[in-house]
């Protein structure tokens, strides 16, 4: 199963529901392009919902890091939602669990995004 990703807006946050495999090749390229497109349109706050990710490899982990860096460099925030056990364990052993802001409740994740001053 290849990767699928759909974007929805909750408040001003872009929630990306990802499913399938985030692996070297199509899956990674697709996710990278989607994040670039959102950043290009000014969508700097992104919540990646990984609930239906069935497989992620080292390239997929690298793609999450790349997305995190790209969003941070634009002054935005990228958070992760609903990690499967597999993804959770991989982030733990690669010491990336503490780098990402990880949530298991969408509403709480949305409120965790910092509001712009004056908003």
């Amino acid at each position: 199963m290849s990767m699928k990703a759909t974007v929805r807006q909750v408040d001003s946050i872009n929630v990306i529901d990802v499913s399938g495999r985030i692996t070297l090749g199509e899956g990674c390229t697709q996710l990278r392009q989607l994040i670039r497109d959102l950043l290009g349109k000014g969508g700097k706050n992104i919540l990646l919902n990984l609930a239906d990710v069935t497989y992620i490899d080292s390239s997929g982990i690298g793609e999450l890091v790349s997305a995190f860096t790209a969003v941070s460099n634009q002054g935005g925030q990228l958070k992760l939602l609903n990690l499967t056990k597999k993804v959770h364990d991989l982030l733990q052993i690669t010491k990336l669990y503490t780098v990402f802001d990880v949530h298991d409740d969408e509403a709480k994740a949305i409120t965790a995004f910092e509001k712009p001053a004056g908003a």
Partner: protein
Amino acid sequence: MTKDNSVVEVTLESNLKNVEVADEVSRRVASKAGFDEDTCEQIEMAIHESVINAIWHGNKNDESKQVRLRFRILPDRLEVRIRDQGEGFDLDAVADPLEEENLLRVSGRGIFLMRSFMDEFRVEKLREGGAEVTMTKKIHTNRKPNQGGTEREHEGDSTPS
């Protein structure tokens, strides 16, 4: 499959589309060897990473070059050999992805995952050309991922992730 039913051999063209074939075979062999589901997934991922390195870094995506996998189920362990037709690589040149300054690097976690998920990991540059990764996993143990092995054998110049 060879005549010896404890040995499975697969030869793949160097095309990333074939990685899923390697994944499927790995999962089946690991299951046949009697590993539980979590361990099967770890073995599959270790082999997945090695096959990607063989295709991408070893054979440089040259479809005329092959990646050979050889699985051997022994009484106490599963042994997997992944052979490419590349130049080999220097394990010492692979940066530690857990170091603070490397945490946000996009690549460089493949070998770490292989070492974490398997009990033994080594790389040899072959006299006839190419490189061979050998990984083993002990059967009937409940060890947690070991956060990286210590055995290092290497030569060559291309640096995989």
